């Protein structure tokens, strides 16, 4: 670029969706958080490869709760996509609020089901390396879900105040990336902890 680039031009101001710094920022968060799950699963498989006790304890974990719960979390992501596309981008408050509320609700259901699943386990976090790994991996994920739900609740309150319209709704775009990430991580965790043991 040279002197010719120096021209007066119309530029948007402030926080605009994918042009906002926060949009770039949340991707750095996603990258570093994804890395922590990579290392977590590395630890899980490393311990699995070295284990001489039963791994997993009691055979592959049941899908009775975890299977439907996975679908619930995916539905939550879908609700959020709808809230953003049909609500936020078109300044439709009803769609935005109901989509956020639905995503939030489904997320809460996921947490409740997950806690129930934990209670039903015959082993604890102190039961050998498998017990420790299972609860720490799913616990890390559950902590992320709870952070994500706090985020969705905050977005809901802001949307309720009328902070967003078709031009200004970067927090929705940014928050959605985080929530979808939390859901995507669950798919990986679910595959590693629930499906992979069935392969052998």
């Amino acid at each position, binding site marked *: 670029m040279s002197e010719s680039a120096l021209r007066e031009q119309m530029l948007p*101001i402030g926080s605009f969706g994918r042009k906002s710094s926060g949009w770039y*920022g949340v991707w750095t968060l996603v990258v570093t958080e994804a890395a922590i799950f990579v290392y977590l699963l590395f630890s899980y498989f490393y311990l699995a490869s070295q284990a001489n006790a039963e791994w997993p304890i009691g055979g592959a974990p049941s899908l009775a709760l975890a299977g439907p719960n996975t679908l619930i979390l995916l539905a939550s992501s879908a609700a959020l996509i709808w809230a953003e596309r049909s609500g936020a981008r078109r300044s439709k408050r009803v769609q935005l609020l109901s989509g956020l509320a639905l995503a939030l609700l489904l997320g809460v259901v996921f947490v409740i089901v997950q806690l129930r699943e934990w209670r039903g386990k015959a082993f604890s976090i102190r039961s050998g390396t498998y017990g420790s790994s299972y609860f720490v991996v799913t616990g890390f994920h559950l902590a992320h879900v709870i952070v994500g739900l706090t985020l969705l609740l905050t977005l809901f309150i802001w949307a309720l105040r009328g902070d967003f319209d078709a031009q200004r709704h970067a927090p929705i775009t940014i928050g959605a990336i985080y929530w979808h990430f939390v859901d995507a991580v669950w798919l990986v965790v679910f595959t590693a902890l629930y499906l992979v043991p069935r392969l052998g």
Partner: protein
Amino acid sequence: MSATEENRTTRIVREGEVTIDRHLEAIWKTRPGLRGVLSSVDHKRIGIRYIVTAFVFLIAGGVEALIMRLQLAHSDLKILSPEAYNQLFTMHGFTMIFLYAGPVLSGFSNYLWPLLLGSRDMAFPRLNALSYWIFLLAGIFLYASFPLGVSPDAGWFNYPPLSGKDYNPGPNIDFYLLGLIFLGISTTVGAANFLVSLLRTRAPGMSINRLPILVWGTLTASVGNLLAVPAVTLACVLLFADRQFGTHFFDVEAHGQPLLWQHLFWMFGHPWVYAIVLPALGIVSDALPTFCRRPLVGYTPVALATVSTMIVGFGVWLHHMFATGMPVLSLAFFSAASLVITIPSAVSTFAWIATIWTGKPVLTTPFLFLSSFIILFVIGGVSGVMTGAVPLDFQLTDTYFVVAHLHYVLIGINVFPVMGGIYYWFPKMTGRMMSERLGRWNFWTMFLGFNIGFFPMHIVGLMGMPRRIYTYAPGLGWDTINLITTLGSFAFAVGILLFLINLTVSLRRGIPAGANPWDGPTLEWSVPSPVPAYNFAVIPVVASRHPLWEERLESPERSSLSRGYLLNHGRETLATTVLDAEPDLILEMPGDSYGPLALALGLGVLFVGLILHSGPWAVIGILATALAILFWLWPQRRLGQIAEPHHV
């Protein structure tokens, strides 16, 4: 003065054409007094704070080292108990590697990035303040263990089972684990900030082939940190859980794997080594050419070498574990990968030598530090190749040879460029020159002291002296060498003292510097010294790598420095596109805020609660942190985050 509009046509003005400076000064100035100290988000203040705090830790770690050297000056000395010695070498390592070497480079980059990139601040000014406050609090947290006599004592890489509950029941290791997790947050948000700043806040025309090498170095380090820090954070979380919640990750009796710690630690540790040297190499690549009166030879190869070093650096962690009984195939692979790193290192080395060779060197203090660094880099590199070769490593592991190697790497590649960097940019930061005369004394004392102190460690290591022993028996032939090492380390410390004297004297009585005392080529030298709060009166347009040397290099490009974008409707800077750096958006920047400090303190309460095993305090910490985040992220009209009333 409404920042609530949605778009605006940018104005191009010549600096001085309209009187904007005082107006901008009022917009960007940090409030005076304590309020300003606690709430400032000015990257220049934060950068200098980072450097000063890191130097305080350097001095603390240095004093620890000197006490150890007294203990080792002769066989069978009893100055320190074994327990005190263990705490000292652990704290020395932790301090130098985590609280000095990384943060000091963050300081340089925080101060310099917006100036090098042609911007008014980093992409996330408040995050910048946050990363500093967390760094400070994490350092204080760790050092609180010292007066209590319970400092970490299992070495800076803290291997279990020694660091497990059975062998280390006190709170010592918990200080290490929590301190490192806490500090990791600082490193991570800092890295995110550098990355986004690079992607978004370059001046128009600053395409990636025009970035200063320091920017390449810090960028590479930041990406590395984002990917590597989680490994050590996780390792610390797992070990903390083992110690406090009865999990079995590293517990041998329950088939836990102590080696898992080593894997996670070095998956982080080796990229971290590059994170604390690559920006320092960047300092050399940017500052050395100024004193050779020519551009860096081989800009593109050096930039590529920087990036490729880090990429390969993710695949070499096992060379820290050669002696743990790995399969031969892994040994071969990781040894080969480690040796491959010599290629990019050699590329940079030859580029620096060629720059000096074909230039007209000016023998100033910064030049002495930067050029002597090349010698130390080569020595540290050669001993690195030796330890990277498996058979030799079996012999050298855990001897003083490794201690010599890592000190040549860390002091040679970090401290020497940092010293050169301070002499180089001190005029920019303060408006005054440092004393050349004192600088020469400073350099020669440090250089001779360092080599006298650390080179003999290679020899005593080859003679078989293990590291981390608090004393040794007479008659092993180690006494004289150790005495020389101790004398050298004290001479090195005198060099640091001379530096501090120079700093103090020059701050008051240094010769006024002017904007460009060294006749440097890059953007930071185009603004006054010290730099005004708003950095650039108008956002410049960059056309080459050397905006200030274009005429003498007779290059056809012409950057526009005094004529540029006028942004004065509040704290504003220009966002540009990722690849081509075309103007894309006007960023509304946050002003001074207590948010970062509040958030850091909330986290501090959490970590204090955890070390005290106090549930209530931990919960209070979490709630305070959450509230601080909420307050921070609350959408603001001034930042253009809220819908405008005129929209339906």
